[in-house]
């Protein structure tokens, strides 16, 4: 599965939707994911890709990681997966 499909699968599970119901333009709010659902999604993504996402719920706008839409989340993860240090 591509990064895109894996992220959509995670977001869909969190939103209790079918992956086919999640579009790239959707915001997490559109999908009914609240602040607690957001941190749970980020945790699931970190686990899935073995990456560390710099996200502070107090200042989401200041984070390098853009959560404004499903597409921006995928773009952010693609960047992190490429630069992930191998431990």
């Amino acid at each position, binding site marked *: 599965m591509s990064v895109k499909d894996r992220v959509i699968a995670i977001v869909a599970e969190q939103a209790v939707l079918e992956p086919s119901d999640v579009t790239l333009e959707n915001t997490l709010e559109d999908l009914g994911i609240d*602040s*607690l659902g957001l941190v749970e999604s980020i945790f699931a993504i970190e686990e899935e890709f073995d990456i560390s996402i710099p996200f*502070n*719920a*107090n200042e989401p706008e*200041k984070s390098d990681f853009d959560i404004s839409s499903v597409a921006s989340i995928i773009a952010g993860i693609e960047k992190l997966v490429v630069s992930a240090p191998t431990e």
Partner: protein
Amino acid sequence: MKRVVITGAGTINALGHDVPETLGAMKEGHCGIGPLEMRDVERLAVQIGAQVSDFASDTIFNRQQLALYDRFTQFALIAAREALAQSGLEFSGALSAKSGVVMGNSGGGMQTLDENYRTVYEDGKNRVHPFVVPKLMNNAAASHISMEFNLKGPSFTVASACASSNHAMAQAFQMVRSGMAPVMITGGTESMLCFGGVKAWEGLRVMSKDACRPFSSTRNGMVQGEGAGVFVFEEMDHAKARGAEILAEVIGFAMTSDASDIVMPSRQGASRAIAGALQDAGVNREEVGYINAHGTGTAANDKTECSAVADVFGPHADNLMMSSTKSMHGHLIGGTGAVELLACIMALRDGVIAPTIGYEEPDPECALDVVPNEAREASVDVVLSNAFAFGGLNAVLALRRV
């Protein structure tokens, strides 16, 4: 109904090992937050906290005591010794039979849990010390206070996360006010600054990696602290009859539940608790000069708390002062309201309002006088102490100058 006064106070926290040191640090706007010192700290994403430093427990407790006292119990006993010594009370006969201890605590013996999980899971050992259970149980601190001071009345521990101390002190207040107990020892204690404790908090992504800056537009989260605060709540006539020094009068409290979200605070729940405390105390909102805020430094709390205060106080919100001392001693979770009550007593007795340090830029959504960065002299007659916990459990106390 009986009137309830405070005749003793004790503490140990990142600002000091007793009340005078702590109040001195609050007056100077000293910050107790620094780099965490603990095993595996390099594996933490959050590496700061307000730890109690220069603490040599083996010079205070003997070997047998240390085998039974988790750090949260040690803190509670140190604070209780100071409070009881100040009060001058000794417990025997009928006074002993009716007086008790209500302590707030959230995590229990977290250090003991952390160490012993390591022993069985990481080190693969199949044996732990026989006192693990009596050491880690949440009521251990309250029980050891009752044993050390011969308190044989109602004693227990209250757990309501970040409001534990305020719920505990509200309960003790109610017991003395109703005539059920002549004296109650009360407050809170917490020691969650261990690897597992900090790691768990990291997960919520609400912790700051650099500083606690409540109400400042530049705030980026909370910082954990540790320690204890313990007070002697005494029936006023009992205190006067023995010529005790009275630090302040406890005049009311209220508790509410948001019944909405497990972590997000509610403006309505907070407003109802603040208004309820004023009503229970029988004071007009214009009489309140200072509020010790819950003020965690998270976006969610600070905005909600400021709007709740604006709701309750209306135009008077612009005249009162509200500071968050968590900027200095960190968030002691279940022990926080007890250490914060010291700032309330300082405001009433010494006429000094503790500052909100680390304040950099105003936030239009927190447009109250938060006493930024420097303590201020002011004469106040009535103060409130707010606590709004995860789980939507709120408790507000009201105190008056005597």
